[in-house]
Protein backbone atom coordinates (compact mmCIF):
# COMPACT_ATOMS: atom_id res chain seq x y z
CA UNK A 1 0.00 0.00 0.00
CA UNK A 2 1.21 3.49 -0.64
CA UNK A 3 -0.08 6.87 0.38
CA UNK A 4 -0.85 9.83 -1.84
CA UNK A 5 -0.05 13.43 -1.11
CA UNK A 6 -3.68 14.06 -0.18
CA UNK A 7 -3.64 11.15 2.23
CA UNK A 8 -0.49 12.39 3.91
CA UNK A 9 -2.07 15.82 4.24
CA UNK A 10 -5.09 14.16 5.84
CA UNK A 11 -2.93 12.15 8.26
CA UNK A 12 -1.01 15.28 9.20
CA UNK A 13 -4.24 17.06 9.93
CA UNK A 14 -5.48 14.13 12.04
CA UNK A 15 -2.19 14.29 13.94
CA UNK A 16 -2.60 18.07 14.31
CA UNK A 17 0.68 18.90 12.64
CA UNK A 18 0.60 21.79 10.21
CA UNK A 19 2.51 20.93 7.06
CA UNK A 20 3.42 23.14 4.15
CA UNK A 21 3.79 22.05 0.53
CA UNK A 22 7.55 21.61 0.70
CA UNK A 23 7.30 19.44 3.80
CA UNK A 24 4.60 17.29 2.24
CA UNK A 25 6.77 16.86 -0.84
CA UNK A 26 9.57 15.30 1.17
CA UNK A 27 7.33 13.41 3.54
CA UNK A 28 5.33 11.50 0.91
CA UNK A 29 8.22 9.47 -0.58
CA UNK A 30 9.77 8.94 2.84
CA UNK A 31 6.58 7.52 4.27
CA UNK A 32 6.09 5.36 1.20
CA UNK A 33 9.59 3.93 1.54
CA UNK A 34 8.88 2.96 5.12
CA UNK A 35 5.42 1.58 4.35
CA UNK A 36 6.77 -0.44 1.46
CA UNK A 37 9.42 -1.93 3.73
CA UNK A 38 6.96 -2.93 6.46
CA UNK A 39 4.79 -4.63 3.83
CA UNK A 40 7.01 -7.71 4.24
CA UNK A 41 5.15 -8.48 7.46
CA UNK A 42 2.31 -9.63 5.23
CA UNK A 43 4.44 -12.67 4.24
CA UNK A 44 4.15 -14.14 7.71
CA UNK A 45 1.33 -16.56 8.34
CA UNK A 46 -0.21 -15.31 11.55
CA UNK A 47 -3.35 -17.40 11.55
CA UNK A 48 -4.10 -18.51 15.06
CA UNK A 49 -1.54 -16.10 16.56
CA UNK A 50 -2.78 -13.76 19.26
CA UNK A 51 -1.57 -10.16 19.05
CA UNK A 52 0.71 -9.38 21.97
CA UNK A 53 -0.88 -7.40 24.77
CA UNK A 54 1.66 -7.63 27.61
CA UNK A 55 5.31 -8.31 27.01
CA UNK A 56 6.06 -9.60 30.51
CA UNK A 57 3.25 -11.32 32.38
CA UNK A 58 2.06 -8.91 35.03
CA UNK A 59 -1.26 -8.39 36.73
CA UNK A 60 -3.01 -5.07 37.04
CA UNK A 61 -2.92 -3.81 40.59
CA UNK A 62 -5.46 -1.74 42.43
CA UNK A 63 -4.12 1.10 44.50
CA UNK A 64 -5.31 1.66 48.05
CA UNK A 65 -8.77 3.17 47.98
CA UNK A 66 -7.87 6.29 49.90
CA UNK A 67 -7.63 9.94 48.87
CA UNK A 68 -4.14 10.92 47.69
CA UNK A 69 -2.77 7.41 48.25
CA UNK A 70 0.20 8.52 46.18
CA UNK A 71 0.72 12.21 46.87
CA UNK A 72 2.55 12.97 43.60
CA UNK A 73 -0.38 11.78 41.57
CA UNK A 74 -3.08 12.87 44.01
CA UNK A 75 -5.01 16.11 44.27
CA UNK A 76 -4.25 19.52 45.71
CA UNK A 77 -1.41 20.25 43.32
CA UNK A 78 -2.86 23.00 41.20
CA UNK A 79 0.22 25.20 41.45
CA UNK A 80 2.51 22.37 40.38
CA UNK A 81 0.24 21.36 37.54
CA UNK A 82 0.04 24.90 36.19
CA UNK A 83 3.68 25.79 36.79
CA UNK A 84 4.75 25.03 33.22
CA UNK A 85 1.61 26.11 31.41
CA UNK A 86 2.24 28.58 28.56
CA UNK A 87 -0.84 30.55 29.66
CA UNK A 88 -2.21 29.87 33.13
CA UNK A 89 -5.15 32.13 33.98
CA UNK A 90 -7.16 32.29 37.20
CA UNK A 91 -5.92 28.85 38.23
CA UNK A 92 -6.79 27.23 34.91
CA UNK A 93 -5.13 26.49 31.57
CA UNK A 94 -5.84 29.36 29.22
CA UNK A 95 -6.73 28.56 25.59
CA UNK A 96 -8.02 30.63 22.68
CA UNK A 97 -11.79 31.05 22.62
CA UNK A 98 -13.51 27.90 21.35
CA UNK A 99 -17.13 29.08 21.33
CA UNK A 100 -18.05 31.90 18.96
Amino acid sequence: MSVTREEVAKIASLARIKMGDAELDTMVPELNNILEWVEQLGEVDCSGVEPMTAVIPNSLRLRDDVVDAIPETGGGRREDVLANAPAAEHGFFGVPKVIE
Partner: protein
Amino acid sequence: MTELTNLGVKAIRDGVAGGDFTAREVAEAFNAAVAEAAELNAFIVTTPDHALAAADATDAKRAKGEDLGTMGGVPIGMKDLFATRGVQTTAASHILEGFTPEYESTVSQNLWDAGAGMLGKLNLDQFAMGSSNETSYFGNVASPWKKQGTNAAMSPGGSSGGSSSAVAARIAPAATGTDTGGSIRQPAAFTGICGIKPTYGRCSRWGVVAFASSLDQAGPMARSVEDCAIMLEAMAGFDPKDATSLKMEVPAWEAGLSADLKGKTIGIPKEYRMDGTDEEILKSWEQGKEWLRDAGAEIVDISLPHTKYALPAYYIVAPAEASSNLARYDGVRYGLRDLPDGAGLQDMYAATRAAGFGDEVKRRILIGTYVLSAGFYDAYYTQAQKIRTLVAQDYEQAWGECDAILAPTTPTASFPLGSLDKDPLTMYLNDVYAVPASLAGLPAMSVPAMLNGEGLPLGLQIVGKPFDEQGVLNAGLAIQQRAGFEAQPEKWW
Protein backbone atom coordinates in the same frame (compact mmCIF):
# COMPACT_ATOMS: atom_id res chain seq x y z
CA MET B 1 47.52 10.76 42.49
CA THR B 2 45.24 8.79 40.22
CA GLU B 3 43.35 10.90 37.74
CA LEU B 4 39.91 10.87 39.38
CA THR B 5 38.09 11.14 36.06
CA ASN B 6 39.56 7.81 34.99
CA LEU B 7 37.69 6.04 37.78
CA GLY B 8 34.42 4.21 37.39
CA VAL B 9 31.46 3.84 39.73
CA LYS B 10 32.89 1.14 41.98
CA ALA B 11 36.34 2.72 42.28
CA ILE B 12 34.83 6.09 43.19
CA ARG B 13 32.36 4.68 45.66
CA ASP B 14 34.98 2.52 47.38
CA GLY B 15 37.60 5.27 47.27
CA VAL B 16 35.26 7.77 48.89
CA ALA B 17 34.15 5.25 51.51
CA GLY B 18 37.77 4.34 52.23
CA GLY B 19 38.89 7.97 52.52
CA ASP B 20 41.30 7.89 49.55
CA PHE B 21 39.66 11.08 48.30
CA THR B 22 36.53 13.04 49.10
CA ALA B 23 33.30 13.04 47.14
CA ARG B 24 33.78 16.77 46.64
CA GLU B 25 37.14 16.21 44.95
CA VAL B 26 35.51 13.73 42.61
CA ALA B 27 32.61 16.05 41.78
CA GLU B 28 34.97 18.94 41.16
CA ALA B 29 37.15 16.85 38.85
CA PHE B 30 34.17 15.73 36.76
CA ASN B 31 32.56 19.17 36.74
CA ALA B 32 35.81 20.52 35.31
CA ALA B 33 36.02 17.73 32.72
CA VAL B 34 32.43 18.42 31.66
CA ALA B 35 33.12 22.15 31.35
CA GLU B 36 36.10 21.43 29.09
CA ALA B 37 34.18 19.12 26.78
CA ALA B 38 31.65 21.48 25.22
CA GLU B 39 32.76 20.36 21.75
CA LEU B 40 31.24 16.93 22.30
CA ASN B 41 27.86 18.60 22.92
CA ALA B 42 27.02 15.69 25.23
CA PHE B 43 25.11 17.83 27.73
CA ILE B 44 22.06 20.02 27.15
CA VAL B 45 22.45 21.62 30.57
CA THR B 46 25.12 21.09 33.19
CA THR B 47 24.32 21.02 36.88
CA PRO B 48 27.64 21.33 38.72
CA ASP B 49 25.90 22.52 41.87
CA HIS B 50 23.76 19.40 42.02
CA ALA B 51 26.88 17.25 41.83
CA LEU B 52 28.62 19.31 44.51
CA ALA B 53 25.64 19.28 46.87
CA ALA B 54 25.32 15.50 46.61
CA ALA B 55 29.06 15.14 47.15
CA ASP B 56 29.00 17.34 50.23
CA ALA B 57 26.11 15.32 51.63
CA THR B 58 28.15 12.14 51.12
CA ASP B 59 31.24 13.64 52.74
CA ALA B 60 29.14 14.82 55.70
CA LYS B 61 27.67 11.36 56.13
CA ARG B 62 31.11 9.84 56.09
CA ALA B 63 32.29 12.26 58.76
CA LYS B 64 29.41 11.08 60.93
CA GLY B 65 30.09 7.42 60.17
CA GLU B 66 26.76 6.93 58.35
CA ASP B 67 26.04 4.62 55.43
CA LEU B 68 26.96 6.31 52.14
CA GLY B 69 24.68 4.31 49.86
CA THR B 70 25.60 2.03 46.97
CA MET B 71 26.34 5.02 44.72
CA GLY B 72 27.67 7.26 47.48
CA GLY B 73 29.89 10.00 46.07
CA VAL B 74 29.41 9.04 42.41
CA PRO B 75 28.42 11.90 40.10
CA ILE B 76 26.57 10.72 37.00
CA GLY B 77 25.05 12.06 33.80
CA MET B 78 21.25 11.95 33.45
CA LYS B 79 19.72 11.40 30.02
CA ASP B 80 17.45 14.38 29.38
CA LEU B 81 14.46 12.08 29.11
CA PHE B 82 14.17 11.75 32.90
CA ALA B 83 12.17 14.42 34.69
CA THR B 84 14.35 16.18 37.24
CA ARG B 85 12.77 18.56 39.70
CA GLY B 86 13.79 22.14 39.07
CA VAL B 87 16.07 21.24 36.16
CA GLN B 88 14.98 21.70 32.54
CA THR B 89 13.82 18.44 30.94
CA THR B 90 13.45 18.57 27.18
CA ALA B 91 13.69 15.10 25.56
CA ALA B 92 15.99 17.10 23.24
CA SER B 93 12.94 18.77 21.70
CA HIS B 94 11.93 22.36 21.09
CA ILE B 95 8.39 21.62 22.24
CA LEU B 96 9.67 20.93 25.78
CA GLU B 97 12.34 23.63 25.81
CA GLY B 98 12.15 25.41 29.14
CA PHE B 99 9.99 22.71 30.75
CA THR B 100 11.04 22.49 34.39
CA PRO B 101 9.37 19.60 36.17
CA GLU B 102 7.86 19.99 39.60
CA TYR B 103 8.59 16.34 40.27
CA GLU B 104 11.42 13.84 40.06
CA SER B 105 11.38 10.61 38.03
CA THR B 106 11.47 7.47 40.15
CA VAL B 107 14.70 6.23 38.59
CA SER B 108 16.58 9.50 39.17
CA GLN B 109 15.20 9.73 42.71
CA ASN B 110 16.40 6.17 43.38
CA LEU B 111 19.87 7.18 42.23
CA TRP B 112 19.96 10.28 44.46
CA ASP B 113 18.73 8.16 47.36
CA ALA B 114 21.65 5.81 46.74
CA GLY B 115 24.07 8.74 47.09
CA ALA B 116 24.67 9.72 43.45
CA GLY B 117 24.82 13.32 42.22
CA MET B 118 24.05 14.85 38.82
CA LEU B 119 26.61 16.41 36.47
CA GLY B 120 23.94 17.51 34.02
CA LYS B 121 21.24 16.51 31.58
CA LEU B 122 22.55 14.56 28.62
CA ASN B 123 21.72 15.18 24.99
CA LEU B 124 19.86 12.50 23.02
CA ASP B 125 17.92 11.97 19.85
CA GLN B 126 14.70 13.94 20.00
CA PHE B 127 12.13 12.01 22.06
CA ALA B 128 14.66 9.13 21.91
CA MET B 129 13.89 8.59 18.21
CA GLY B 130 17.07 7.95 16.31
CA SER B 131 20.23 5.89 16.17
CA SER B 132 22.91 8.54 15.67
CA ASN B 133 22.11 11.50 17.90
CA GLU B 134 21.43 13.71 14.92
CA THR B 135 17.77 14.44 15.65
CA SER B 136 18.28 16.55 18.79
CA TYR B 137 16.96 20.11 18.69
CA PHE B 138 20.12 20.99 20.63
CA GLY B 139 22.55 19.79 17.98
CA ASN B 140 24.44 16.60 17.18
CA VAL B 141 26.52 14.84 19.79
CA ALA B 142 30.03 13.81 18.72
CA SER B 143 31.63 10.59 19.77
CA PRO B 144 35.04 10.99 21.41
CA TRP B 145 36.30 8.34 18.97
CA LYS B 146 37.69 9.08 15.51
CA LYS B 147 38.23 6.75 12.64
CA GLN B 148 41.97 6.25 12.29
CA GLY B 149 43.59 8.84 10.06
CA THR B 150 40.43 10.92 9.68
CA ASN B 151 39.12 13.90 11.49
CA ALA B 152 35.41 13.58 10.77
CA ALA B 153 33.10 13.74 13.79
CA MET B 154 31.69 10.26 14.41
CA SER B 155 28.26 9.28 15.70
CA PRO B 156 28.08 8.21 19.35
CA GLY B 157 25.00 6.16 18.44
CA GLY B 158 21.52 6.93 19.60
CA SER B 159 19.30 7.67 21.14
CA SER B 160 21.43 7.70 24.32
CA GLY B 161 24.31 9.39 22.48
CA GLY B 162 25.04 12.05 25.07
CA SER B 163 25.29 9.27 27.63
CA SER B 164 27.63 7.11 25.55
CA SER B 165 29.81 10.03 24.48
CA ALA B 166 30.18 11.35 28.05
CA VAL B 167 31.04 7.99 29.56
CA ALA B 168 33.50 7.05 26.79
CA ALA B 169 35.15 10.49 27.03
CA ARG B 170 35.50 10.05 30.82
CA ILE B 171 33.63 13.22 31.59
CA ALA B 172 31.14 11.07 33.54
CA PRO B 173 31.84 7.74 35.23
CA ALA B 174 28.37 6.50 34.29
CA ALA B 175 25.09 7.72 32.89
CA THR B 176 21.49 6.71 32.62
CA GLY B 177 20.13 5.58 29.28
CA THR B 178 16.80 4.40 27.99
CA ASP B 179 16.23 1.62 25.50
CA THR B 180 13.08 1.30 23.42
CA GLY B 181 14.66 -0.52 20.51
CA GLY B 182 18.39 -0.45 21.16
CA SER B 183 19.09 3.01 22.53
CA ILE B 184 21.29 1.79 25.38
CA ARG B 185 23.05 -1.04 23.57
CA GLN B 186 23.79 0.50 20.18
CA PRO B 187 25.40 3.68 21.58
CA ALA B 188 27.34 1.57 24.10
CA ALA B 189 28.67 -0.59 21.25
CA PHE B 190 29.62 2.48 19.17
CA THR B 191 31.67 4.02 21.97
CA GLY B 192 33.35 1.03 23.62
CA ILE B 193 31.36 1.03 26.86
CA CYS B 194 28.85 -1.27 28.59
CA GLY B 195 25.12 -0.81 28.85
CA ILE B 196 22.28 -3.00 30.01
CA LYS B 197 18.57 -2.83 29.36
CA PRO B 198 16.82 -4.83 32.10
CA THR B 199 13.65 -6.90 31.78
CA TYR B 200 10.66 -4.71 30.90
CA GLY B 201 9.18 -3.48 34.18
CA ARG B 202 12.34 -3.61 36.32
CA CYS B 203 12.88 0.16 36.19
CA SER B 204 9.96 2.45 36.74
CA ARG B 205 8.88 4.52 33.76
CA TRP B 206 7.33 7.15 36.01
CA GLY B 207 8.74 10.53 35.12
CA VAL B 208 10.47 9.26 31.98
CA VAL B 209 9.25 11.09 28.87
CA ALA B 210 7.30 8.36 27.07
CA PHE B 211 8.21 7.19 23.57
CA ALA B 212 6.69 3.69 23.18
CA SER B 213 5.34 2.63 26.54
CA SER B 214 5.30 -1.12 25.94
CA LEU B 215 9.01 -1.04 25.04
CA ASP B 216 10.65 1.79 27.01
CA GLN B 217 13.09 0.67 29.71
CA ALA B 218 15.76 2.60 31.58
CA GLY B 219 19.21 1.19 32.29
CA PRO B 220 22.78 2.15 33.15
CA MET B 221 25.69 2.90 30.83
CA ALA B 222 29.19 2.66 32.28
CA ARG B 223 32.67 1.42 31.45
CA SER B 224 32.49 -1.93 33.22
CA VAL B 225 30.03 -4.71 33.85
CA GLU B 226 30.50 -4.28 37.62
CA ASP B 227 29.59 -0.60 37.37
CA CYS B 228 26.47 -1.47 35.39
CA ALA B 229 25.46 -4.03 38.03
CA ILE B 230 25.87 -1.50 40.86
CA MET B 231 23.97 1.22 39.08
CA LEU B 232 21.15 -1.00 37.81
CA GLU B 233 20.62 -2.21 41.35
CA ALA B 234 20.18 1.40 42.44
CA MET B 235 17.84 2.29 39.55
CA ALA B 236 15.51 -0.72 39.63
CA GLY B 237 12.65 -1.51 41.96
CA PHE B 238 8.89 -1.70 42.26
CA ASP B 239 7.05 1.58 41.87
CA PRO B 240 3.32 1.87 42.53
CA LYS B 241 3.24 4.92 40.23
CA ASP B 242 3.98 2.78 37.16
CA ALA B 243 1.23 0.29 36.30
CA THR B 244 3.71 -1.94 34.46
CA SER B 245 6.33 -1.93 37.22
CA LEU B 246 7.35 -5.42 38.32
CA LYS B 247 6.52 -6.21 41.92
CA MET B 248 9.70 -8.18 42.57
CA GLU B 249 12.69 -7.84 44.84
CA VAL B 250 15.73 -6.31 43.20
CA PRO B 251 18.38 -9.05 43.23
CA ALA B 252 21.85 -8.34 44.62
CA TRP B 253 23.36 -8.20 41.14
CA GLU B 254 26.70 -6.79 42.23
CA ALA B 255 27.23 -9.45 44.90
CA GLY B 256 26.06 -12.14 42.48
CA LEU B 257 28.63 -11.38 39.79
CA SER B 258 30.61 -14.40 38.63
CA ALA B 259 32.49 -14.97 35.39
CA ASP B 260 32.44 -18.73 35.85
CA LEU B 261 30.00 -20.01 33.22
CA LYS B 262 30.43 -23.75 33.88
CA GLY B 263 27.13 -25.51 33.34
CA LYS B 264 25.74 -22.62 31.26
CA THR B 265 24.71 -22.95 27.64
CA ILE B 266 24.97 -20.00 25.27
CA GLY B 267 22.90 -19.95 22.10
CA ILE B 268 24.12 -18.59 18.77
CA PRO B 269 21.16 -17.58 16.61
CA LYS B 270 21.80 -18.51 13.00
CA GLU B 271 19.53 -15.72 11.70
CA TYR B 272 21.90 -13.05 13.02
CA ARG B 273 24.13 -13.12 9.95
CA MET B 274 22.30 -10.63 7.88
CA ASP B 275 23.43 -9.01 4.68
CA GLY B 276 25.18 -5.76 5.39
CA THR B 277 26.85 -6.98 8.56
CA ASP B 278 30.56 -6.12 8.67
CA GLU B 279 33.06 -8.95 8.30
CA GLU B 280 34.85 -7.65 11.37
CA ILE B 281 31.66 -7.78 13.42
CA LEU B 282 31.19 -11.41 12.43
CA LYS B 283 34.79 -12.08 13.44
CA SER B 284 34.27 -10.46 16.83
CA TRP B 285 31.22 -12.69 17.29
CA GLU B 286 33.40 -15.77 16.64
CA GLN B 287 35.88 -14.44 19.16
CA GLY B 288 33.05 -13.92 21.64
CA LYS B 289 32.09 -17.59 21.36
CA GLU B 290 35.69 -18.55 22.16
CA TRP B 291 35.72 -16.31 25.20
CA LEU B 292 32.51 -17.77 26.57
CA ARG B 293 33.70 -21.30 25.89
CA ASP B 294 36.88 -20.46 27.74
CA ALA B 295 34.73 -19.30 30.68
CA GLY B 296 33.19 -22.75 30.84
CA ALA B 297 30.03 -22.29 28.79
CA GLU B 298 28.79 -24.69 26.19
CA ILE B 299 28.01 -23.05 22.84
CA VAL B 300 25.04 -24.29 20.82
CA ASP B 301 23.42 -23.16 17.58
CA ILE B 302 19.85 -22.00 17.91
CA SER B 303 17.22 -20.55 15.63
CA LEU B 304 15.09 -17.43 16.10
CA PRO B 305 13.12 -17.75 12.86
CA HIS B 306 11.21 -14.45 13.00
CA THR B 307 14.27 -12.25 13.58
CA LYS B 308 14.03 -10.63 10.18
CA TYR B 309 10.49 -9.40 10.88
CA ALA B 310 11.27 -7.87 14.26
CA LEU B 311 12.54 -4.55 12.89
CA PRO B 312 9.62 -3.82 10.55
CA ALA B 313 7.20 -4.85 13.32
CA TYR B 314 8.98 -2.45 15.67
CA TYR B 315 8.57 0.36 13.12
CA ILE B 316 4.82 -0.10 13.33
CA VAL B 317 4.43 -0.68 17.06
CA ALA B 318 6.83 2.03 18.25
CA PRO B 319 5.49 4.84 16.03
CA ALA B 320 1.91 3.80 16.87
CA GLU B 321 2.57 4.13 20.58
CA ALA B 322 4.57 7.31 20.00
CA SER B 323 1.76 8.96 18.05
CA SER B 324 -0.53 8.32 20.98
CA ASN B 325 1.97 9.35 23.68
CA LEU B 326 3.00 12.52 21.88
CA ALA B 327 -0.60 13.69 21.52
CA ARG B 328 -0.11 15.34 24.92
CA TYR B 329 2.10 18.08 23.46
CA ASP B 330 -0.58 20.52 22.46
CA GLY B 331 0.59 23.91 23.66
CA VAL B 332 -1.90 23.93 26.51
CA ARG B 333 -0.43 22.29 29.58
CA TYR B 334 3.31 22.69 29.26
CA GLY B 335 6.01 23.46 26.78
CA LEU B 336 5.85 25.51 23.63
CA ARG B 337 2.74 27.31 22.42
CA ASP B 338 2.54 28.77 18.95
CA LEU B 339 -0.59 30.89 18.63
CA PRO B 340 -0.76 32.56 15.22
CA ASP B 341 -2.72 35.82 15.09
CA GLY B 342 -6.43 35.15 15.29
CA ALA B 343 -5.94 31.38 15.48
CA GLY B 344 -8.45 29.10 17.16
CA LEU B 345 -7.68 26.09 19.32
CA GLN B 346 -7.19 23.59 16.48
CA ASP B 347 -4.87 25.95 14.60
CA MET B 348 -2.92 26.47 17.78
CA TYR B 349 -2.41 22.72 18.21
CA ALA B 350 -1.27 22.30 14.62
CA ALA B 351 1.05 25.31 14.67
CA THR B 352 2.54 24.37 18.03
CA ARG B 353 3.26 20.81 16.97
CA ALA B 354 4.64 21.93 13.60
CA ALA B 355 7.07 24.30 15.30
CA GLY B 356 7.89 22.07 18.26
CA PHE B 357 8.64 18.67 16.72
CA GLY B 358 11.63 17.81 14.54
CA ASP B 359 11.40 15.98 11.22
CA GLU B 360 12.03 12.47 12.54
CA VAL B 361 9.45 12.91 15.29
CA LYS B 362 6.90 14.12 12.74
CA ARG B 363 7.65 11.15 10.53
CA ARG B 364 7.02 8.76 13.41
CA ILE B 365 3.82 10.49 14.44
CA LEU B 366 2.49 10.33 10.88
CA ILE B 367 3.38 6.65 10.50
CA GLY B 368 1.79 5.92 13.86
CA THR B 369 -1.34 7.89 13.06
CA TYR B 370 -1.66 6.10 9.74
CA VAL B 371 -1.22 2.54 11.04
CA LEU B 372 -3.75 3.17 13.80
CA SER B 373 -6.31 4.80 11.55
CA ALA B 374 -9.62 3.21 10.67
CA GLY B 375 -9.30 0.71 7.85
CA PHE B 376 -5.55 0.14 8.33
CA TYR B 377 -5.39 -0.86 11.96
CA ASP B 378 -5.66 -4.60 11.42
CA ALA B 379 -3.42 -4.77 8.39
CA TYR B 380 -0.61 -2.92 10.13
CA TYR B 381 -0.94 -2.67 13.87
CA THR B 382 -2.64 -5.97 14.69
CA GLN B 383 -0.37 -7.81 12.28
CA ALA B 384 2.70 -6.24 13.92
CA GLN B 385 1.49 -7.22 17.38
CA LYS B 386 1.05 -10.79 16.14
CA ILE B 387 4.58 -10.79 14.80
CA ARG B 388 5.66 -9.55 18.18
CA THR B 389 4.05 -12.61 19.75
CA LEU B 390 5.96 -14.81 17.29
CA VAL B 391 9.26 -13.09 18.09
CA ALA B 392 8.64 -13.64 21.81
CA GLN B 393 7.75 -17.29 21.15
CA ASP B 394 11.03 -17.76 19.26
CA TYR B 395 12.86 -16.82 22.44
CA GLU B 396 10.70 -19.05 24.63
CA GLN B 397 11.62 -21.96 22.40
CA ALA B 398 15.27 -21.01 22.55
CA TRP B 399 15.25 -21.03 26.35
CA GLY B 400 14.63 -24.76 26.10
CA GLU B 401 18.10 -25.06 24.61
CA CYS B 402 20.20 -22.30 26.16
CA ASP B 403 20.51 -19.95 29.13
CA ALA B 404 21.51 -16.84 27.23
CA ILE B 405 22.16 -15.72 23.66
CA LEU B 406 25.30 -14.18 22.19
CA ALA B 407 24.98 -11.91 19.15
CA PRO B 408 26.49 -8.79 17.67
CA THR B 409 25.01 -5.56 19.04
CA THR B 410 25.09 -3.72 15.71
CA PRO B 411 25.73 -4.62 12.06
CA THR B 412 28.48 -2.00 11.69
CA ALA B 413 30.78 0.20 13.75
CA SER B 414 30.06 3.90 14.21
CA PHE B 415 29.75 6.11 11.11
CA PRO B 416 30.52 9.78 10.49
CA LEU B 417 27.82 12.25 11.51
CA GLY B 418 25.92 13.33 8.42
CA SER B 419 26.56 10.13 6.47
CA LEU B 420 23.22 8.35 7.03
CA ASP B 421 20.83 11.04 8.12
CA LYS B 422 19.29 11.59 4.67
CA ASP B 423 17.82 8.12 4.57
CA PRO B 424 15.53 7.13 7.45
CA LEU B 425 15.34 3.45 6.46
CA THR B 426 19.10 2.90 6.37
CA MET B 427 19.30 4.53 9.77
CA TYR B 428 16.65 2.18 11.15
CA LEU B 429 18.74 -0.84 10.14
CA ASN B 430 21.25 0.03 12.85
CA ASP B 431 18.97 -1.59 15.38
CA VAL B 432 18.28 -4.80 13.53
CA TYR B 433 20.07 -6.89 16.19
CA ALA B 434 18.89 -4.87 19.16
CA VAL B 435 15.17 -4.67 18.49
CA PRO B 436 14.15 -8.35 18.81
CA ALA B 437 14.98 -8.45 22.55
CA SER B 438 13.05 -5.20 23.02
CA LEU B 439 9.94 -6.62 21.40
CA ALA B 440 10.14 -9.57 23.82
CA GLY B 441 10.90 -7.39 26.87
CA LEU B 442 14.11 -9.32 27.62
CA PRO B 443 17.21 -8.17 29.48
CA ALA B 444 20.05 -7.45 27.07
CA MET B 445 23.51 -5.96 27.37
CA SER B 446 26.30 -4.72 25.14
CA VAL B 447 29.93 -5.09 26.21
CA PRO B 448 32.97 -3.87 24.28
CA ALA B 449 34.85 -6.61 22.43
CA MET B 450 37.64 -4.97 20.45
CA LEU B 451 38.60 -2.20 18.07
CA ASN B 452 38.10 -2.75 14.36
CA GLY B 453 40.81 -2.14 11.77
CA GLU B 454 39.92 1.56 11.74
CA GLY B 455 40.31 1.95 15.47
CA LEU B 456 36.58 2.01 16.24
CA PRO B 457 34.98 -0.03 19.07
CA LEU B 458 32.80 -3.07 18.40
CA GLY B 459 30.34 -4.46 20.93
CA LEU B 460 28.92 -7.89 21.66
CA GLN B 461 25.37 -8.40 22.85
CA ILE B 462 24.06 -10.86 25.42
CA VAL B 463 20.32 -11.48 25.68
CA GLY B 464 18.88 -13.29 28.69
CA LYS B 465 15.71 -14.89 29.95
CA PRO B 466 13.09 -12.67 31.56
CA PHE B 467 14.32 -11.52 35.02
CA ASP B 468 17.77 -13.06 34.48
CA GLU B 469 19.83 -9.87 34.46
CA GLN B 470 22.34 -11.80 36.56
CA GLY B 471 22.95 -14.32 33.81
CA VAL B 472 23.40 -11.50 31.31
CA LEU B 473 25.80 -9.59 33.55
CA ASN B 474 27.81 -12.73 34.29
CA ALA B 475 28.26 -13.59 30.63
CA GLY B 476 29.17 -9.94 30.08
CA LEU B 477 31.77 -10.17 32.82
CA ALA B 478 33.26 -13.29 31.27
CA ILE B 479 33.65 -11.42 27.97
CA GLN B 480 35.00 -8.31 29.67
CA GLN B 481 37.71 -10.29 31.48
CA ARG B 482 38.85 -11.99 28.29
CA ALA B 483 38.47 -9.07 25.91
CA GLY B 484 40.61 -6.87 28.17
CA PHE B 485 39.25 -3.83 26.35
CA GLU B 486 41.40 -0.94 27.60
CA ALA B 487 41.38 1.30 24.55
CA GLN B 488 40.58 4.97 25.14
CA PRO B 489 39.76 7.67 22.65
CA GLU B 490 42.49 10.25 22.29
CA LYS B 491 41.42 13.58 23.75
CA TRP B 492 40.74 16.19 21.01
CA TRP B 493 38.02 18.24 22.69
